């Protein structure tokens, strides 16, 4: 049995099988879907906001619950602690992320057409890197908003870190943060890509 790294060049030169190509196309579709679906949701609950305040993060836009009103409300509340207003125009990511996702759709289709494992590997590696980088940007946004507080604000509060995923208690608010459909599709797309590679692995005979 050869070591995996030694067999890698052979694998990369293999072609993706029929089902694998279908999976690549499915992955392209899933990414396309993620462009228009919410990726993340932040949900804030307090005694007098039982129904909650919601913020939906899309690849290309930021949407407040209650017909957008919730963001105004969140900003209104945040001004007491001196947090700068959360507004879509500050999220420069929203200009390039949809573009990047479009590129991944094209790369996935390209991999499906040329059906080379190496293309799938490139696609998957880049996509995972893109995902990780996007999560980092999200973390960075949350960190910046909650650590850049106006010292003149009426209410003094220590800088804090909102939950990226899960829940956190911030003053009288319980903050929930969790992925939405769009992120699930992106994750599924990765599963599709890995699946395509798996199906293209050398047959049992070569393992002998």
């Amino acid at each position: 049995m050869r070591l995996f790294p030694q067999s890698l060049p052979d694998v990369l030169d293999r072609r993706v099988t029929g089902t694998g190509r279908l999976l690549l196309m499915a992955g392209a579709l899933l990414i396309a879907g993620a462009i228009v679906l919410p990726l993340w949701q932040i949900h804030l609950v307090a005694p007098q906001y039982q129904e909650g305040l919601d913020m939906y993060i899309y690849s290309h836009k930021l949407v407040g619950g209650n017909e957008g009103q919730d963001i105004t409300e969140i900003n209104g509340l945040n001004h007491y602690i001196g947090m700068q207003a959360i507004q879509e125009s500050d999220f420069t990511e929203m200009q390039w992320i949809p573009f990047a996702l479009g590129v991944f759709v094209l790369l996935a289709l390209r991999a499906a057409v040329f059906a080379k494992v190496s293309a799938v590997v490139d696609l998957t590696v880049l996509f995972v890197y893109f995902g990780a980088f996007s999560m980092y940007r999200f973390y960075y946004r949350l960190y910046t908003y909650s650590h850049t507080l106006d010292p003149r604000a009426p209410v003094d509060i220590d800088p804090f870190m909102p939950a990226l995923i899960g829940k956190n208690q911030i003053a009288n608010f319980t903050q929930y943060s969790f992925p939405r459909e769009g992120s699930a599709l992106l994750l599924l797309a990765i599963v599709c890509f890995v699946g395509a590679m798996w199906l293209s692995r050398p047959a049992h005979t070569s393992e002998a």
Partner: protein
Amino acid sequence: MRSRISQSLSFVLLLAFGLGLAGCGTESSSTGADGGAPASYVPPGEKDNYYLFYSGGHSGNVWVAGLPSLRMIQKIPVFTPAPGMGYGYTKETKEMMGEYTWGDVHHPGLSKTNGRYDGRWLFVNDNANNRIARISLRDFKTKQILGPIPNSMGNHGSSFVTPNTTYVLVATRFSVPLPKGTYAPVETYEENFNGIVSGVKVDSTTGEMSVGWQIKTPPFNWDLGSTGKGPSHGWAFWTSYNTEMAHDSLEINASQRDRDYAAFVNWKRAAEIVANGNAGTRNGVPFIDPAEHEGVMYYVPVSKSPHGIDASPSGRWIVASGKLQPTATVFDFKQVLTAIENKDFQGEFRGVPVINYESIVEGEVPVGQGPLHTQFDGEGNAYTSLYIESSVAKWKLPPWDEATAQDMSKAVVDKISVHYNVGHIVIGGSDTKDPYGEWLVAMNKLSKGRHISVGPSQPETSQLIDISGKEMKMVAEAYTPPEPHFAQVVHKDVINPVEVYEQENNTHPEAVWEQQNTGVKRTGPNEVTAHVIAKRSQYYPDEIEAQVGDTVIIHLTNIEQVSDMIHGFGIAEHNVNAIVDPGETKTMEFTVQKAGVFPFYCTNFCSALHQEMQGYLAVRPQ
């Protein structure tokens, strides 16, 4: 340290929004008295099933309570200033209220479509200053006050809404020489004084009211009324007292005849006469003399000094009660139509036919002493309030079996005591085709001794009676300030209120939403105009400069777009207090007469920094 900060922070934020409503309760169950709680018990966090709109009587307001809890929820100011809501202190409300600072609200009437409540408007009358007002049930605010209605004096016999809200019907309690403003000696009452009944037309889209027609009547004192439906659709009914036409010592002089007249008015015919251009006009409104137009009005004799007259849900049975005779008289409207067709009259009065009583009466039900008002449960039962007896009688509507027809006392199936001296009673939807028939609220005139004492000025009692079973059950009681006369009850699902005025729906021409559009400008040699926005917890601008003698105009917009985030604007020593709801703009206009610096501040607790929400009106000497 950290926990101390976060604790004090949550305290602050809780304070800020601590007035918020939890509001996610489930349906309350209004049946069953498990655990010893009364059937009307609505636990904290749960909601009532019905709205109860009380007239506020001479308080000039409407009160909104929940049913079955009887918990008071809100006041809707109509004819009387209400500083708590800025009503009567802003330009808009001052103009609407006109020259009067009070009214006497008696009979609220809900708008209807196809004979059922449609949840659009509530109409209320002003007995004192002859007005009628329309409240929108979208925002529970008074939208229009019509009046003083020309030729109308003592607008007591309203607000009775026709099955499609075509008209709100109105009648005069008092008679005066017409047109109003004419002098005649009171001794010439019989010849020179007149009453009227009117149809106030309601625009079906906007709800805008205008006088559609008026019918001249002798100087009887018109009392209560109701509108027909089914076979009586197109008709309206009013009782009267004082067909004696006495002008003094009415207590005795108006109680001489054994029967007074009720008016049966064909309002469709009245509308026709006006549409055909056959009505005259008086004081700018269409005016009909019923002696000149056949078929518009008939009199029906009713036992002594009647008060209430109510049409059954089917519209066939018209029930009138003579407060000085212990019976409720049931008329068969089908027989009324036959009698009119056959000219089966027992005479006429000033050119108006008096329908033959015997031909149209179905029966006189001995309900008890002092019968006033009758309501219906939609199950064939009627309930009549008995003022003198302090009770409510439940009795069966026709058709009656032979034994009952022979002995009308058999029609009375139950009676319950109330405390004390009941006036109106209300069953939800009683004036519609489909009453809810679950609860009855008795509005009692005297509460003496039922509550811990509050001195000589005493409240009125409302008592809740469960009418879902065979026997009536007293379930709860509550108190209101003076003085509900009648009420309307409507299921909560019929009404669909807004809680925020959305920015795009704000049509106030002076509304501003952005800080950069606010400011104070001199708009005339003696006029200063300020465009101000209010939001948690700041006014922009928070300084207004003026000079003695200036008229100061402040257009205040609350730019909040969330429920219950209400701001106020009270100015010290200037008798000004505006309250703006989320998304609302109001205008204050006043003249500054003294130099000095006067703080203005948010009067409606809004946030943790509500106390900081303030500014200054700085007035320079001339």
